[in-house]
């Protein structure tokens, strides 16, 4: 199994290279550049700049050089750990992103934990109590949950909370902790706030996962080893948990590979609506203002998280299913 992991790790830099080219090209695609956007912004507020100033800005930000030079310079800096400077915020990107990245990952992991903790038991109960009231009501919730876009749920919940309870559920921290250093109190405050975005973000994932779990389990429940285990005298609960659940979970584990990255990158919508300090809203703004180093860095980070997620799920899958391990070796 070690060989398997090493093989996958070696592919990482190659993928990242391809993605970085990709990201860079996308960022550069819109006509004009940051300076054009900056000037447009200035113009809309009434001030003007002259040609010399424009050229000066361009040279300052290295925007007058050909594309591939810019790319190489950018990659060179990244490899030394310097993500560059945000043209919009005029601060080093690592400084800007640092905490936001942490919160993005925290939100993603929290949501993931919540999703799985809820989806597996629901799936098991639905499958073992097929056609019961629980199963039907779950199916109804499931369909509606999958059909409702996350931002909708976010908006509606926010509105309800505000109009009926007068509480504002935006952000991840109460006002006194927003810029404070990391203390235990801050962590507790984070936990108090993070559960709602996690629930909203994870709602349709939970629904989907529970449904797949139910379907897989229903398949496994028909298999001959179930009959055999029953014939041995195992009690229903023990045998359901030990045998079919174990097998039914395997395909689910393979979904972690795309679910986890999706949580990281998909939170942008909920984050925008609920005004969360994660990197998603920052990407949105960077794209609109053509702050290319910032946008490129964030996209690269998303790609990186995506690859890591796939790797984790592959490792987990190999560990869980001995057949895969044997085939690879």
């Amino acid at each position: 199994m070690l060989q398997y992991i090493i093989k996958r790790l070696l592919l990482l830099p190659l993928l990242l290279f391809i993605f970085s080219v990709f990201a860079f090209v996308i960022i550069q695609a819109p006509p004009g550049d940051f300076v054009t956007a900056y000037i447009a912004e200035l113009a809309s507020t009434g001030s003007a700049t002259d040609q010399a100033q424009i050229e000066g800005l361009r040279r300052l930000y290295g925007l007058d050089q050909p594309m591939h030079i810019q790319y190489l310079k950018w990659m060179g800096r990244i490899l030394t750990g310097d993500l560059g400077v945000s043209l919009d915020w005029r601060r080093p990107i690592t400084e800007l992103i640092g905490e936001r990245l942490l919160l993005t990952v925290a939100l993603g992991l929290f949501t993931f934990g919540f999703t799985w903790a809820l989806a597996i038991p629901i799936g098991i109960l639905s499958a073992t109590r097929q056609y019961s009231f629980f199963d039907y009501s779950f199916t109804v919730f499931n369909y509606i949950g999958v059909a409702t876009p996350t931002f909708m749920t976010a908006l509606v919940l926010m509105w309800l909370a505000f109009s009926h309870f007068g509480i504002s559920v935006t952000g991840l921290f109460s006002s006194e902790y927003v810029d404070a250093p990391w203390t235990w109190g801050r962590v507790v405050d984070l936990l108090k706030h993070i559960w709602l975005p996690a629930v909203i973000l994870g709602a349709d994932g939970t629904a989907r996962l529970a449904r797949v779990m139910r379907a897989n389990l229903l398949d496994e429940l028909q298999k001959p080893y179930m009959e055999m285990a029953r014939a041995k005298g195992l009690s229903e609960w023990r045998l359901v948990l030990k045998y079919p659940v174990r097998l039914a979970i395997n395909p689910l584990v393979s979904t972690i590979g795309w679910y986890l990255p999706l949580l990281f990158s998909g939170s942008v919508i909920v984050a925008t609506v609920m005004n969360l300090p994660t990197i998603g809203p920052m990407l949105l703004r960077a794209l609109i203002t053509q702050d290319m180093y910032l946008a490129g860095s964030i996209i690269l980070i998303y790609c990186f998280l995506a690859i890591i997620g796939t790797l984790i799920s592959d490792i987990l899958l190999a560990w869980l299913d001995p057949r895969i391990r044997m085939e690879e070796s």
Partner: protein
Amino acid sequence: MDTQTTPLLSVRNLKTYFYLDEGTVKAVDGVSFDVYSGQVLGIVGESGCGKSVTIKSVLRIVEKPGRIVDGAMLFRPQKKNGRGGSGESDDFIDLVKLNAHGKQLRSIRGAEIALIPQEPMAAFSPVYTVGNQIIEAILLHQDVNKQEARQMAIERLHEVGIPSPERRINAYSWELSGGLRQRAMIAMALSCNPRLLIADEPTTAIDVTTQAQVLNLLRSLQQQHGTSIIFITHDLGVIAQMAAYVIVMYLGSVMETGPVDDIFHNPQHPYTKALLKSIPSVQSQSRTFLPTIEGSIPHPFNRPSGCSFHPRCLEFMPNVCNRRTPSLQPVNDRQSASCFLYHDAAEED
């Protein structure tokens, strides 16, 4: 071999029906038989005659929408005297009346009545080792710790003829060949010294050479431990080898019962006669047609009226066989048959 006057298991008028959307399938429709201590009972019949459902009913593992709707299955449990022992209590438990998921039935399953399923590949879970699953069975029913259970499992594997059992115990089922898998399955079934072993077509999924080995194994184990076996198969040759007593089933009912020699040399029921005639023989003349039974098994939702075999029966008696259903009655002092050729007794309803 100990033949007592009271059977170990007595199945009386068992009826198991499946309630489907399209209709009700009477998979087992009034089946009765007795199994005595140390005896091998063979159940023979075509696919779809209800043999598998019968034994699943005995173990109470019939899947929904199937249900036992009538009948009794009287079983004589072990007297509780330490680790097994040969004492048998005189009480009967009716297996039909027990709760299918209840503790009592679960303590019988695996420990007193064990199953050797049809497909050992599918019956072992692929994500746990063979040893894990055997030890699980042991720990479930016997008061031993893990090391002792592991030791017992290794001994069992050795007993069924698996070489290097200490290594093989850590193997997964898909790492073993067909024959070894079947032996491992037998080891698991015997791990708790059951008094009744149910073998569901154990030789169907393996080749003929391995089949011979497995049958020899079962025979020697049976003689050693004095286990009763219910042996299910559609292969008459295997029945001839293994069984002492045979029941012939068709479409959920018993057509004939009797000792194996009588069944083979003096079959009573037309169905049994036709089955025997259809066995290809090395000695038969070449270039002659192999006798077959006309027609085929009726659609389960459309059972023939009266005797269920009458549309295909060569000795069909009009207005008799299609009007009433014959019940199983003795035709001589050893065999019984369900046919109006021999008696006039019909089933009520």
